[in-house]
């Protein structure tokens, strides 16, 4: 039983394990990673919906960072998969709503398809970038970095509690599914059972969250101050500045430059 719980924990906290690694990327200041990630998210989210080629170019960032930081792609894939259902819903509705043909005379693919694909790609890239940030800094690195960048403590505390509750929820879900699996004799999960499990999950996660909150409160946590967290006051080193500037220049180039068009032209040349 305890073995099983600790496995759940370790699965849930994978990011903190990855953050313990010692690559040159991990040795950079958390603030550097925060800055680059924010620039990247702005670049991806500000792209016009139909600009797929620039989006493809921007995918180089998570690939490069994962390779350099030794972050397994499976970890990123899992995180993206967790967030996927919501966006798929939106994407499908987009396909439904926008059925104008993309190429005149051909009914398929529609403009809605392109928008949906772009939306999914955006989701994958933003979630991957955020997960990479967590994998490179760890939660405590991230909080100390954000506090060091003068982000209001209340916001950082909210983020921290949100993350903590997400862990509680996934932990509880895994326990429930395992308990069911052990007694289901291999039968498939029915919709009705899934409904019951979901209800149970809410109740149990709420109870557990309350106990966790109580435990934090008992140890002086008031939800406002973050005295328990180190605040990053180190001075940024030259390597931090150099890496941040290089990455931000690249992001600007990928977002606004004609690199994507060039890439597109070369792809067109390759095509027969």
């Amino acid at each position, binding site marked *: *039983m305890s073995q099983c719980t*600790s496995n759940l924990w*370790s699965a849930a906290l994978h990011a903190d394990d990855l953050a313990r690694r010692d690559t040159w990327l991990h040795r950079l200041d958390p603030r550097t990673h925060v800055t680059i990630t924010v620039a990247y998210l702005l670049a991806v989210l500000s792209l016009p919906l139909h600009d797929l080629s620039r989006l493809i170019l921007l995918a180089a960032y998570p690939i490069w960072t994962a390779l350099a930081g030794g972050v397994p792609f499976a970890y990123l894939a899992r995180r993206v998969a967790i967030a996927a259902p919501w966006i798929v819903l939106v994407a499908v509705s987009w396909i439904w709503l926008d059925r104008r043909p993309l190429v005149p005379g051909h009914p398929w693919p529609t403009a809605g398809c392109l928008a949906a694909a772009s939306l999914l790609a955006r989701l994958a890239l933003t979630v991957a970038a955020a997960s990479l940030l967590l994998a490179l800094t760890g*939660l*405590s690195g991230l909080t100390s970095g954000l506090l060091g960048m003068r982000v209001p403590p209340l916001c950082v505390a909210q983020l921290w509690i949100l993350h903590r509750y997400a862990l509680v929820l996934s932990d509880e879900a895994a326990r429930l599914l395992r308990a069911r699996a052990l007694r289901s004799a291999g039968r498939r999960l029915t919709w009705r059972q899934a409904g019951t499990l979901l209800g149970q999950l809410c109740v149990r996660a709420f109870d557990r969250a309350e106990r966790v909150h109580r435990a934090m409160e*008992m140890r*002086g946590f*008031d939800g406002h101050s973050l005295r*328990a967290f180190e605040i990053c006051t180190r001075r940024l080193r030259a390597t931090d500045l150099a890496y941040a500037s290089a990455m931000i220049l690249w992001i600007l180039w990928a977002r606004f430059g004609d690199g994507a068009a060039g890439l597109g032209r070369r792809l067109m040349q390759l095509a027969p």
Partner: protein
Amino acid sequence: MNAGSIEVVAVSFDYPDGTRALRDVSLSIRAGEAVALVGPNGAGKTTLLLLLTGCLFPTSGTVRVDGMELRPDTCTELRRRIGFVFQDPDDQLFMPTVWDDVAFGPRNLGYGEAEVARRVRAALDAVGAAGLAERPPYRLSVGQRRAVSLATVLAMEPSIVVLDEPGAGLDPRGRRALARILLDLSCTRLMATHDLDLAVATCRRAILLDGGTVVAEGPLPDLFADEALMDAHGLERPASLRHH
């Protein structure tokens, strides 16, 4: 050293769904005393501990800590003096490393890093977990996690430590180690348990709770030698007292 006394006067408690968990409970614990709160499942032990730590407030009656009544407006101050070790260590441990977890409380109390480090080291030493400081808590064994949970509370240097089922899930060696740690503490200790051997090993007095009321109380191990009493409340006499 006279901080750390608890007084419960005619306390009743109803859960919001109407379950009456405690009725007319009175007891008092002197500073520095080690007391076991025993009773079968559902007796109301956990509820009583939650009332003593200001996590819940009585429906009627009063709880006093060091002579001061525990109320919503005084509980922040009083909680600094009371440490609560939860039944499930996973509810208690949440920081990425053992060190950070133990430091969480003292940092919240506003101590400087030097004092925080001193307290963390002392607390980890007290529970024999000094070697675990850099480990992530979720990778420890149950016994280790329980020891670290206790350390997170000791680092706040409370005058009262309250423990809920501290022996649950421990093997005999783990229980002996825990008993030794608890014996060495000088603060007031109150532990809820149905493990009577652990109670005998660590406490001089026991309070027997059943159906939400105090049914007996007395010095250990004599109280547990009363076979009729133990049987009546679904408890088994500790192995250490069974001679025949």
